[in-house]
């Protein structure tokens, strides 16, 4: 229930927001923040609850695919924390947006809620098609928000963002469709089986197309073209959400979808690892030179995410915990930095850090918050960032000490640019005369303070974060939990011999939800699935031939198929 709510209630909220009028600023802010608080609470509950799953409901059939696409949500530790990030950051964004825009706050809130729903769906989907659906759906509200509320180059930014990310994930769509034509259904395990039955070149192509989508979304070095302009043109609260929660979708995809589905060989792993490291260094170097504060933050988060990706592909035992902590820490710290930079932009009326300065004297509280945020972003021990980076460093060191050295170099660079950032913004004397804009409201400051406090808390007791992973079994494929669910889906029909259709058809879908999935049954069912897999392949070839040969009316076709080869359609047979 919670999962459904987290995915759909935001959209409902977005629709409800339409009720109050555009001009009525107060009412819409109250309503929006109320909703935001509710969602944040739900996300906390989700994190506290650990693993949950909904009943897979058949969603629709994709033409040419064997099985149906399910509407099937699953929450494991990783996804739960990502959802927490998206909901929490959205709440703070709604709070801080009150200071940024007055008229169109309602539309902004609508966009934020839609974005939040899409992100939650992405992080909770257990079905490949569903995941892809939300993965794409995220882009649209974000782009609209940028186009509506961004800086002076907002149109260009929105177009770049939308086109870049959509084009980036277009190959993934094709690859997914191809996988689904082979797989029994769109759950992870059947996709895994499908991939294993594919020819080598096909595997490589599918791998690359998935890779591209996630590389673009993260973004990783050669594909980061959209990032700087998007984050800098977007309104600060949105940038916070984009970098804090949405860019995690890429890393999440790496962990939750690529690692289980593909059996990677060493060159591929090392390639992605090095891409991550190059991204880390590249982002740090760009941040060293950036003068636009938002660009600087964009590059710094790019660098951190590069480290995270490197950690993912280090395949160490403690990888998942480390990367999770790193992601959560970066989400919060980058988010709060964007919010605070937004406040600074509001006060000084510029994004250029060369023109800021002296804010710690004009507004000491802001200076304190800003400096604290900057220092906490430095991965100083005692902050969550340090736990994450140290864990990643450990994993990467196990993989290759030299890479660890590179990560260390990035940490030095991060100190360099972050200190420069702090100095330029809050220290020294104001670089130019400006009439000071509205300051941060008390509520805003409180929210930022809470975020900083969270960083410290997670830094001193990361178990809060890592305990969520307890339920995942730490195999090399870290997201086995989803697999197990799917595994039992597959196991029950496929373990049975192919002849007796009745049993299969009688198999109710509810039994697909297995609360306990023990490994022995998994293996046996795997082999069983493998067998029936092949039989099904040849059967479906016959059907396809006949279908291609006679162009006959649909009714007749259905009639004939069910009389001739019922095996193939047992999935939907069991569903109707």
């Amino acid at each position, binding site marked *: 229930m919670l999962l459904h709510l987290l995915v759909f209630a935001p959209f409902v909220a977005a629709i409800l927001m339409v009720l109050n009028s555009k001009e009525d600023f107060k009412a819409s802010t109250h309503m929006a923040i109320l909703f935001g608080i509710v969602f944040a609470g739900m996300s906390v509950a989700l994190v506290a609850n650990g693993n949950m799953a909904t009943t897979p409901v058949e969603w629709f059939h994709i033409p*040419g695919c064997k099985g149906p696409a399910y509407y099937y949500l699953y929450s494991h530790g990783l996804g739960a924390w990502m959802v927490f990030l998206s909901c929490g950051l959205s709440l703070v964004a709604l709070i801080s947006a009150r200071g940024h825009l007055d008229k169109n706050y309602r539309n902004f809130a609508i966009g934020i809620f839609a974005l939040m729903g899409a992100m939650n769906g992405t992080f909770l989907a257990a079905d490949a098609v569903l995941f892809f659906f939300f993965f794409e759906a995220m882009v649209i509200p974000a782009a609209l928000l940028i186009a509506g509320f961004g800086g002076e180059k907002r149109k260009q930014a929105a177009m770049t963002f939308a086109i870049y990310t959509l084009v980036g994930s277009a190959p993934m769509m094709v690859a997914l469709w191809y996988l689904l034509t082979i797989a029994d259904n769109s759950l992870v395990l059947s996709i895994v089986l499908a991939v294993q039955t594919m020819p080598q070149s096909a595997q490589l192509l599918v791998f690359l197309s998935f890779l591209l989508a996630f590389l673009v979304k993260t973004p990783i070095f050669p594909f980061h073209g959209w990032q700087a302009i998007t984050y800098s043109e977007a309104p600060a609260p949105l940038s916070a959400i984009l970098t804090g929660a949405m860019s995690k979708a890429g890393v999440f995809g790496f962990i939750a979808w690529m690692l289980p589905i593909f059996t990677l060989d060493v060159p591929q792993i090392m390639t992605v690892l090095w891409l991550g490291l190059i991204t880390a260094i590249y982002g740090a170097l760009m941040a060293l030179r950036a003068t636009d504060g938002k660009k600087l933050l964009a590059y710094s988060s790019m660098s951190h995410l590069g480290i995270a990706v490197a950690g993912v592909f280090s395949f160490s*035992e403690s990888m998942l915990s480390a990367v999770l902590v790193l992601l959560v820490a970066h989400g919060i710290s980058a988010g709060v930095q964007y919010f605070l930079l937004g406040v600074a932009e509001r006060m000084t009326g510029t994004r250029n850090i060369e023109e800021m300065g002296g804010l710690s004297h004009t507004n000491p509280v802001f200076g304190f918050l800003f400096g604290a945020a900057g220092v906490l972003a430095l991965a100083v021990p005692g902050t969550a960032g340090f736990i994450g980076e140290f864990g990643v460093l450990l994993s990467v060191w196990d993989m290759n*000490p030299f890479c660890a050295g590179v990560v260390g170099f990035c*940490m030095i660079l991060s100190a*360099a640019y972050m200190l420069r950032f702090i100095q330029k913004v809050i*220290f020294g004397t104001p670089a130019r005369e400006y009439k000071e804009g509205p300051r941060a409201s008390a509520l805003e400051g409180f929210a930022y303070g809470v975020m900083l406090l969270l960083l410290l808390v997670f830094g001193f007791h990361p178990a809060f974060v890592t305990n969520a992973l307890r339920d995942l079994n730490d195999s090399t494929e870290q997201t086995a939990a989803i697999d197990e669910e799917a595994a039992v889906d597959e196991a029950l029909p496929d373990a049975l011999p192919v002849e007796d259709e009745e049993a299969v058809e009688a198999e109710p879908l509810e039994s697909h939800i297995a609360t306990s999935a023990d490994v022995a049954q998994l293996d046996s069912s795997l082999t069983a699935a493998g067998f029936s897999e092949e039989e099904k392949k040849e059967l479906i070839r016959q059907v396809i031939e006949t279908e291609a040969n006679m162009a006959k009316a649909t009714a007749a076709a259905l009639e004939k198929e069910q009389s001739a080869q019922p095996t193939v359609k047992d999935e939907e047979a069991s569903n109707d």
Partner: protein
Amino acid sequence: MTNLPLWLIPLFPLLGTILLGTIAVVSSGSKKGAAENIVGGLAVIFPAMSFACVTVLACGMPESGIRETLCNWIDFPLLHVDIGFLFDGLSRIMLLFVTGIGTLIALYSIGYMHGDRGFARFFAYINLFLFSMIVLVLSDNLLLTFFGWEGVGLCSYLLIGFWNKDLKNCKAANKAFIVNRVGDIGFLLGMLCLLSIGGAAVLNYDIFNQFMQMILNGGHLDLVFTLLTLTGVLFFVGCTGKSAQIPLLTWLPDAMAGPTPVSALIHAATMVTSGVYLVARMGKMFCMLPEVLLLIAFVGMFTALWAAITGLFQNDIKKVLAYSTISQLGYMFMAAGVCAFDASIFHVFTHAFFKAALFLGAGAVIHSLAGEQDMRKMGGLLKKTPVTACVMIFAFFAIVGFPGFAGFWSKDLILEKLVSNGPVIAMPFALGGSVNVPVGMILYVVGLATAVITAVYMGRLIIMTFFGEYRGSKESEAHIHEAPAVMLIPMVVLTFGSIFAGYLWADMIGITFFKDSLAAALGGAEAVGESILSVHHVNPVLFAVLGTLAALLGMFIAWRVYANKKIPTPKDSGAPEGSAAAWTFVWDYIHVGFVFPVRVIAWICDVVVDKFLQAFQWTLGAIGEILGDGASTFQVRRVRLQLALSITGVALIVLVALFAEGIVGIPDFVFKLIDSVKSLLGRVI
């Protein structure tokens, strides 16, 4: 035996930090900050309380030390670290003077920072620093030590840049933090290296010692020797960063931009010595690695010599003291480099007193001269500020090692150890054959020379400051005044410390209390080291005499050169020029040599790579747009043609479908095509 929980010690400064920080933030809005006496009282109370705790614990400490695990910190599959404290001989000594001197300097700062805008903020930082420092020395595992390690670095960053209106201070602070960060990365990688040898458990000091003992007894040393050496080098890099050794020492002189009490507390007494503490803490490992020891010893030697010579050229009184700090740290590392960890810790102990005294005295002088730091504009202050003068002169005797003063015992002990423990390594010649190089002798000679130079530049400082006649402007001379009592009391206390601290370990009069108290903590690292380093015992008296002679010689030179020498009328900047500048800033130049390439690469990334990528992506976009336009123009007003085209498309799809046995077969068909093309290419190439 007392049952005082250990976590009380760091708790008090933490509370102080939170309280004072809140006060600072809250009162920041008001015109005048919070009431100074309240804030100052709080700021002194908390360190004093933790000092009390330390003393109570120190008195009732069992020989083996007290261990206490608070809670779990990190619980990863490969990495399980607890937050635990270890209170043994080593951390007892460190804590005693850290908290004690911390308290005194907090007291001093009340007077020094009087009337400053960020009064509460300053003391919040001081408390935070004390908290981190306590965690550093009290923690029972390396990761928690690293927590304190970076914490103190952060605090020094905050305090150097305390007057952040002036960007010069900010730059100095950034420099300090970044250079420290370089060292910290060494520390981190060293920990990882250690982990890859012995697993996460080894991070705990007890297990670490047992592990090293096991390696030693089991004779597995050769198995892990390379990795251990790497570990040692990496950790030593961390130490060079934190305690300003070659090559990472450039930040310490710049760090003098901070308020003087900060320089006294952080950059003289406590933080910079944490590198020595770490080496002593891990003595069990270092004593097994002769190469690393040699490296440490020579780095210490060069640092000591270089910094001492540099001290001669400085006109800024605080800079002189900074360089003398560096050179004293060099002494400590020389001692550590010959496995005399207890001697080095002893020097840390004594040095804390007299260097703090010197800095506080300098602070008092600066305070009385209303912020003047250039020695060339001082002089003849002996009559005007007698107490300060006496404090500094006593501390001067201590640092030059005048008999009976603290420095005498510790420095001469180190020099003696250099000879007694100094290894003799066979240096092969290019033309065959080899000569035995008595490393100990070299170290000793250089150390002695450094002692002479120390006496010279310290004598110069004292003479230029307190003797002769006042060289400053008349109106400034008018209101030169002795510092208030709140500042004088700590100075006097520290002076007593710098006179008598040495008697805790006076071999010649048979007091070895200090050595014994450390013995358990260092876990016989010396013994191992000495067994490796072929110790031959020597007569301490000889060294005492030699050391004294060196000190006297230095003082004599200083008196002859500077006593009645015309000081040139000071120019604007107190910075050295010409060859002196070249000598002073040599390491800065080397750093630039490292920083510049990074800047260049960053420039390339920004101006070349990124622009290229953007151009590429825009080109793609433009191509797409052009194609789209072409298609649309093609489409305008040609309905029938469109239909025809769509029919052809359908025809093509049907064709492919026929070939590929159905729509579903199309991808397979495509892959088959690709494979065939590949094979074709393969045949071609």
